[in-house]
Structures are given as C-alpha cells and as structure tokens.
C-alpha cells in the first residue's frame, strides 16, 4: 500500500451503495411530485367543472331534467344545433376531402398560401368571424341587397349561423386527411388505374378505404366543434328565442334569465355529447396513426 495524494476521496459510488440509493429515492420523489401536480392540475381544471355541472344539474332531481329536456325551447335549441352540425359536416367533409386531395397531389402557384390559409379559422377569434359575416350580409352589407331582393334572410337566421360554423370548421377535415393522403402515395392509385378502375372506382375502392380513419377523425373534430360553437353563432343569430337559439346560446340566456337549473341541465347534455365525441376522436386517432404508419 502506498499513500496517494490525489483528489479527496469521493463518497461511496459503487452500485448499490448508500449514495445510489439516496439518489434513487430522491429521483422517485421528484417524479412522484411531478405526477401529483399534473393530476391535481387536470382534476381542478378539467374534472372540477364537469363534476360541478353534474351536481348542479341533478340538484333539483330527475323530474326537472326530464321536464327541461322535453320543453319546446330546449328541444328546438338542440334541433337547431344538430341541424347546423349536420349541414356543416356535409359541406366541410366533402370540400375538405377534395381540398386535402388538391393540396397533397397537385403542385400549383399559390399552393403554399392556400395551405397556410386553411388554418386561418383556427387562429381567428370566432367573434371576428361573426362580425365579418354581419358586415357582409347585415344591413348595408355587400351581399345584403342581392339576398334581400330574393327574399332570403341570411343574417339573424339559419343561413348565416351555418355559414360561420362552416368557416370555423374548415380546417379539421383537411388537416386530418392530408397527412394520410400524403403517406398513402400514388402507387396504389396508379395500380388501380392500370387494372382498369375508373376515377370514381379508384376513389371509392382504393382511396377512401385507405383514408377512412383520418376522415373519421376530422368528422369527429368537426362535430364536436360545431356543436360547441357559440361566439360567431351568437353574433349572427340575433338570439331570437325559439328561433335562432342553439343549445349553447340557450345555456347563456338561461343564466341571464336566472333559470340556472335549465342552464346546467343543457350544459350537462352538451358535456355528455362532448365526452362521446372525445371517445370517438380518441379511437379514430389511434386508427389514423395506424393508417399513417401503414
């Protein structure tokens, strides 16, 4: 043994040593703390309101829920909400799929600009969208004379409510179909054509089955958003009771008129629909990922 005058001897660093165990414990503690903070955050922010609405809706008992959901105003509000959602879905799905196709498969001047423009509704406040619609179709608006001359009421009526919802929902189908289409490539389409398939046969037998989960994901996002939309719709609707009152607007006015129970019950119904949509979105997202991965 010789005496070595080196750097001071370090603490025990052999595997399984006391220091290792101490560090391991500390790491586990930190990890546990982070998980706890996340859980607390999600519980307070996400689950809290949901539980609150749930309890409030049931406060006056089941009969009140039945009564509220069958009242003509509420039924009309939901009817209107679904009407808007269905038309929005039909339009944004059809045009969205075609637009995604054009953006992915074709190279043309302005493609990049169009590609960026598609996301505009995501960045824009719905209130702005509503106001723009009022400016175009409201009294003195650019398109107002044309529609008035033909006796079509756009603003403060269903057409404008559908129009703003469509605008807001434009990106969803495009953005969920485009990557799947990109990944699919053109070889299968080429193969179908060499085998004698017409354009429509290629679309229905080869392309659509391949992008179906991406499309479904976009449809689910669109549905959730169009049912939940209030800002833009509120502005163009004029809030005419029993006429242009959607489910979300109903909740808003219910509180203003001190009909808290009705407000909570409709809000809970909307929340229930959202949860179902969330499940659908989650499932289709997984399938979509599988689709993209091939």
């Amino acid at each position: 043994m010789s005496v070595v005058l080196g750097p001071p001897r370090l603490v025990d660093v052999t595997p399984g040593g006391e220091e290792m165990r101490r560090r391991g414990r500390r790491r586990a503690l930190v990890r546990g703390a982070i998980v706890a903070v996340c859980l607390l955050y999600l519980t307070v922010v996400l689950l809290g309101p949901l539980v609150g609405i749930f309890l409030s809706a049931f406060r006056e008992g089941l009969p009140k829920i039945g009564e509220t959901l069958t009242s003509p105003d509420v039924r009309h509000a939901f009817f209107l909400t679904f009407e808007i959602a269905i038309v929005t879905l039909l339009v944004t799905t059809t045009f969205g799929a075609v637009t995604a196709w054009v953006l992915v498969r074709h190279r043309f001047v302005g493609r990049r600009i169009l590609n960026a423009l598609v996301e505009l509704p995501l960045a824009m406040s719905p209130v702005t969208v509503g106001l723009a619609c009022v400016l175009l179709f409201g009294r003195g608006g650019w398109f107002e004379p044309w529609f008035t001359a033909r006796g079509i009421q756009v603003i403060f009526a269903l057409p404008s409510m559908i129009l703003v919802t469509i605008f807001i929902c434009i990106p969803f189908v495009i953005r969920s179909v485009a990557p799947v289409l990109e990944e699919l490539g053109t070889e299968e389409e080429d193969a179908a054509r060499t085998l004698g398939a017409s354009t429509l046969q290629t679309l229905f037998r080869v392309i659509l089955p391949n992008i179906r989960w991406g499309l479904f994901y976009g449809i689910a996002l669109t549905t959730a958003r169009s049912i939940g939309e209030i800002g833009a719709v509120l502005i163009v609707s004029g809030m005419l009771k029993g006429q242009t009152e959607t489910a979300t607007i109903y909740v808003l006015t219910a509180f203003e008129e001190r009909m808290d129970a009705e407000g909570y019950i409709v809000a809970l119904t909307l929340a229930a629909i959202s949860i179902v949509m969330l499940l659908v979105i989650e499932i289709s997202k997984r399938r979509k990922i599988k689709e993209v991965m091939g």
Partner: protein
Amino acid sequence: MRMNAAIRVQNLTKKFGSFVAVDDISFDAAEGKITALLGPSGSGKSTVLRMIAGLETPTNGRIWIEDDETTFKSVQERRVGFVFQHYALFRHMTVAQNVAFGLAVRKQSKADQAGRVDELLDLVQLSPFADRFPDQLSGGQRQRVALARALAPRPQVLLLDEPFGALDARVRQDLRHWLDGLHRELGVTSLFVTHDQDEALELAHEVVVMHEGRIEQMGSPTQIYNEPQTAFVAGFIGSPNVLQGRVAAGHVLVGAHRLPGADHMEEGAAARAFVRPHDVRLAEPDPEAAAAVEARVDRVSTLGWLSRVMLRLDDGQTIVAEIPSDELIDLTEGTTVAVDLRRAKAFEAEPVGAPAE
C-alpha cells in the same frame, strides 16, 4: 409496321420543365419475349415504362401496343399489367381481393372472378394465403401477389418497374428464376426496367441500355456483353477496369501496353480502354517474350474459388484481375507478373467536363 412488335415506341420524349428525362427514343419489344430496359438511376427508363402504361403523358412521340396506337388512350383502355417496385398492393384488401380487383372493376361475375383468382394464386403458389392481408406477407410473396393481380385481367403486355428492387439479394435471385419459369409457361410479352445488369442479361431476350434519357445500345444479352458499341455500355456492363491512354498507330498506349482496337480514332487523341477483371490474363514474367508487359502485384484477396489481384501498371494506373483460385500462380505482394490486356476495348476519352460514371 412489323407484325411481331407487341410494344412499339417511336421518337418518345418526356420533359419535366426544362429537364429532358427521355430524349427521342424508339424501340420495339418483341411479341412473347422479355425485353429489359437497363440503365443507371435517372436514365429515364422508368419514365418510358410509365408512358407506355399511360401513367405519364409523353411530351412527344408515339406508342403502339399490339399494333394499336395507344398514345392518346387512357390508362384503363391500354390493358397493360403493371408491377410496381414497392408492390403497391391494396393494403385494406386480402390477397384474393387484390387479385380479383382488375376483374371486379370490369364487372365480371363473382363466379368468374373466383375461378380466375384460384387459377392465379395457384400459378404464383400462394393459394394458402388467399385470405391474408398484404402486411402479413414477406416481400417476395407480396411481389408474387402483385404479379398475379397484374396478370388476372389477361393484359396484352406486362410492364414491370424494378420488380425485384425492393427485395433482398437472396429473394431477388429466387424470384428472378421463378419469373423466368413463369414466362416460359405463359409467354406474355414483358418489358421490365432494371438497374441490375445481371438481372437484365439473365432474364431478357433483348436488352435496351439507356443512359441520360437516350438509348445507348439494343441487342441480345450476348451482343450487349460482348460487343459494347459505346463507351457507356463498355463501362457499365461487367464492371470493367478503366485505363486512360493515348491513340498511337491504331492502338491505345497505356504505359508500355499497346492495346488494339483504336483504328477508328484519331492519332494522339486521348482514349479509354475497358477491360473486365476476368479478362485480365496473368503469367510468370518471361523475358524472352517480345510483348512482355509487366505489372506489380499490390494485393491479393481470395474469395473462395475466385481470387482478386490488384495490380499496378508501369505508369501507375491500377487494375483488378479476377482469376480462379486454383489457377493462381505465385503472386505474393510486390512480385512482378506479365499482364495480357488484349481483350480490352478501346473508346474515345470522356468529353471534358462530363460527369464521371
């Protein structure tokens, strides 16, 4: 028009913007034979195939399939079978549905479809896999499904785009032999694109060598191999050594070597000589021999039955010789041997500024 041309291409040109992918090419693919379009990547061979199928529109030129001009016909009307490098199977359909696709879109009866699918799956030896999906098959199996699918609607011609390109070496070899057998059985006119000279020489009856959008040479595999007509073909086929030299009295001078076959070239011009490694003959140095030209052995590596000898000529250029290991004379590194390069082929030197091969 000659009657035995199943595919005829005349003055075909394709430009992508200012880039000329295919530059005024004409050739015939004979009825019932296998023709190969051989060339390095970017030579335009796949574009030619895609134009014949109708998947690309020619900028210029005309195409006939079975004496029927198809230049302006749609893909669907051409009735070609097309096999893609990456199989392009419909991933959401079973093997049987894939094979039936071309029949289903032509509205054939279910019974007819089923019969034809059985027949073809039998032919490609995949009957037990009828209900599997493409991602449950190996690469070789997928390509056989793709082939069955292409053949199902009884195409007039079969077009194959790098059909073995995505497979590993062993499977590629197997599938090549298998395809050869299949062609003997069916006799369908086939045109395939490949960058692999072994594939082209082994499988094809006729080879069309392409380079930078043009045809360099057409002929039987033997002609292409033994009588290269351009420097490109000489340099591309058989992985030869390339030696730089000058023309002197109908010969190419490479150091002290005088290689014959330069009669067509100008005296004093720069020239290249191509000699394949197995055409290089080695012997013990013989001071008596008049034309004794010597080289120094740099390195010898033995690959089983074959040995590879790296040689340095007197002017510093290096060449590789391949000789059967049992014919190996005493060749330790640093010794001197007599080299016979008489089988070299002489061509003009590359134009200045041309990209290296």
